[in-house]
């Protein structure tokens, strides 16, 4: 900006619109002339520079200001000049009458509203909130379960009024559509597990125990948990997001004011659907995983698939299948209830939707694993074949 503080540049003609500039006219009294367009279009590239120039100019006390050559002005430009003036109108200012209104509202300070200051007790309060939040969620889930129990009883008296359509849709979405992904993951896990165990078993010459390891491991433990984790990530998050969006768009409130309890319409069908589909998915995933494991065992240890299949009933008592399926029912209901609970708690904003979905998946996987531990304790002496 070589021209800026040089003397008496003539004001530009009105026809063309120039870049905004500050010109100094040597005094006494020292005067500053602003020229060009002082609006957002011109200022967005030069605001920093002009602010610095204005600041230098404004530091001269008692100077005159001539704004009458400003070709265009808007609130953005006016506020920039106003800030340079230190939020006070200087004594000697000339400007076009049509530009006066831009400065008119500026000298009413209004009460200053600052952003809420940083609060040093925040970490402590966050911790407290988390602890309380945990109990809050527990109570919430229990309440939801109770409400659902009441609704189920009422529904059993009028079974035709039940949300069967929703249940059927839920089974399709959470079950049928999940067949491919669960099979793929199950097969790979079966293969990997079989390979790793084979290495160890070969060292001990205990090749035939691959059937026991895979049988018990997959049917009783890994199949159900693996499946539950997949479904929690896939369907649990979807349920939370669905209910969350319904909260955001006030659809939940619309249901309530129509006298339709959303536990019956929305929560119950999802819980029923998941507790039907998850055990079936577990059977499916476990089967595919066993096939994968058997194929890998044939390749690594030379145990044929037919050998594997004949050995399986002896190695794994049938009750394990029941335990696996039983886990599926419980896990399915658990995932659905937790997902619905978090979905119903979402606040009507996008941030909460994201956070709620994340916590829903984390909480449902955690609760599945806790439930799995409980199963392990309860059934520790059931279904383990002793050699």
């Amino acid at each position, binding site marked *: 900006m070589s021209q800026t503080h040089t003397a008496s540049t003539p004001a530009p003609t009105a026809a063309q619109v120039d870049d905004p500039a500050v010109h100094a006219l040597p005094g006494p009294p020292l005067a500053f002339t602003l020229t060009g367009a002082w609006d957002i279009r011109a200022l*967005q590239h030069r605001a920093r520079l002009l602010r610095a120039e204005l600041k230098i100019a404004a530091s001269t006390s008692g100077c005159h200001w001539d704004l009458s050559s400003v070709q265009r002005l808007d609130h953005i430009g006016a*506020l920039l000049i106003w*800030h340079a003036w230190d939020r006070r109108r200087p004594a000697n200012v000339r400007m076009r009458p049509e530009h006066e209104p831009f400065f008119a509202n500026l000298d009413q300070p209004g009460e200053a509203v600052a952003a809420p200051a940083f609060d040093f007790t925040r970490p402590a309060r966050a911790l407290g909130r988390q602890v309380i939040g945990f109990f809050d969620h527990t109570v919430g889930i229990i309440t939801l379960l109770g409400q659902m129990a009441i609704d189920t009883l009422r529904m059993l008296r009028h079974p035709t009024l039940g949300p069967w359509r929703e249940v059927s849709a839920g089974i399709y979405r959470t079950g049928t559509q999940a067949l491919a992904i669960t099979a793929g993951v199950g097969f790979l896990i079966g293969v990997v597990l079989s390979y790793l165990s084979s290495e160890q078993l070969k060292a001990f010459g205990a090749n035939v125990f691959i059937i026991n390891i895979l049988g018990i491991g997959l049917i009783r433990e890994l199949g159900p948990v693996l499946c539950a984790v997949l479904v929690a990530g896939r369907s649990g998050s979807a349920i939370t997001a669905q209910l969350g969006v319904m909260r*955001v768009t006030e659809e939940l409130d619309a249901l309530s004011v129509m006298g339709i309890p959303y536990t019956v319409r929305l929560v119950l069908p999802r819980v029923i659907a998941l507790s039907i589909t998850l055990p079936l998915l577990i059977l499916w995933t476990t089967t595919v995983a066993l096939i994968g494991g058997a194929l890998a065992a044939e390749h690594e240890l030379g145990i044929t698939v037919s050998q594997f299949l004949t050995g399986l009933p002896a190695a794994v008592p049938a009750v394990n299948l029941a335990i696996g399926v039983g886990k599926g029912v419980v896990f399915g209901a658990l995932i659905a209830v937790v997902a619905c609970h978090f979905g119903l708690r979402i*606040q*009507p904003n996008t941030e909460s939707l994201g956070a709620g979905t994340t916590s829903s998946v984390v909480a449902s996987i955690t609760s599945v694993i806790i439930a799995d531990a409980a199963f392990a304790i309860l059934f520790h002496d059931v279904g383990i074949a002793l050699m």
Partner: protein
Amino acid sequence: MTTSTTSETAARPPIIEVDGLWTQFGDHVVHRDLNLRVQPGEVMSLVGGSGSGKTTLLRQMLGLEKPTRGGIKVFGIPLQNTPREMVRRIRRRWGVLFQEGALYSALTVFDNIALPLRELRVFDEDYIHDMVMLKLDMVDIERRHAWKNPSDLSGGMVKRIALARALVLEPELIFLDEPTAGLDPDRSESFVNLIRSLREKLGLTVVMVSHDLDTIVALSHRIAVLAEQRVLVYGPLAEVIKVDHPFVQNFFLGERGQRAMSGVAAPPT
């Protein structure tokens, strides 16, 4: 206020030009060969029955939807087949008030209004703070609401804050979809005054979709009536009401219309 400004604006090129616009959803034709010109510095009101395609037309003017056929130019630049950068630059020059406000729900009121300013990356926080407060004053929102979340606001407040956000970059052109729906009469009045003063101060051009006769009558230089898949009539109020079409007659000359245009609220019977 419905003074004609033709003398001063006739020479300037129109801000929006809609030429031979067709819009079709499946085999449902919404617009059939529709033409429209909006002159700079004018307030243009778009009226029409429900489902006549006002919102659709507005979205097409904003480049959010592509017409089936025909072209739309804004600031003389066609929205279709134009480099993205150019369209982006046009979008900096207009402001939009959506029917539902469309505030960013994860941001506070303050941050919602500050967002476009911050995007420019030339102003410091001190300046942005003052600018936001100025806009809040402009739309009659008390400053203590600045740190609230959009979900904690009433419908009318959301509207006014969305208007503040639309105005913060000093647009040359502003699109308003139902600006006064959900506002109390006092606030509608101050909305009318705000738009009027902005138009005088900045030469703002306004495209407004509205069903609120009081606002339409108070602000519009020209009214475009959308009916039968086209612009049935386009002109100042006096011209529009002469048209003999059931929609026009009911809309402007029904009991409600008479009351609005006579400027005195008749006592309810």
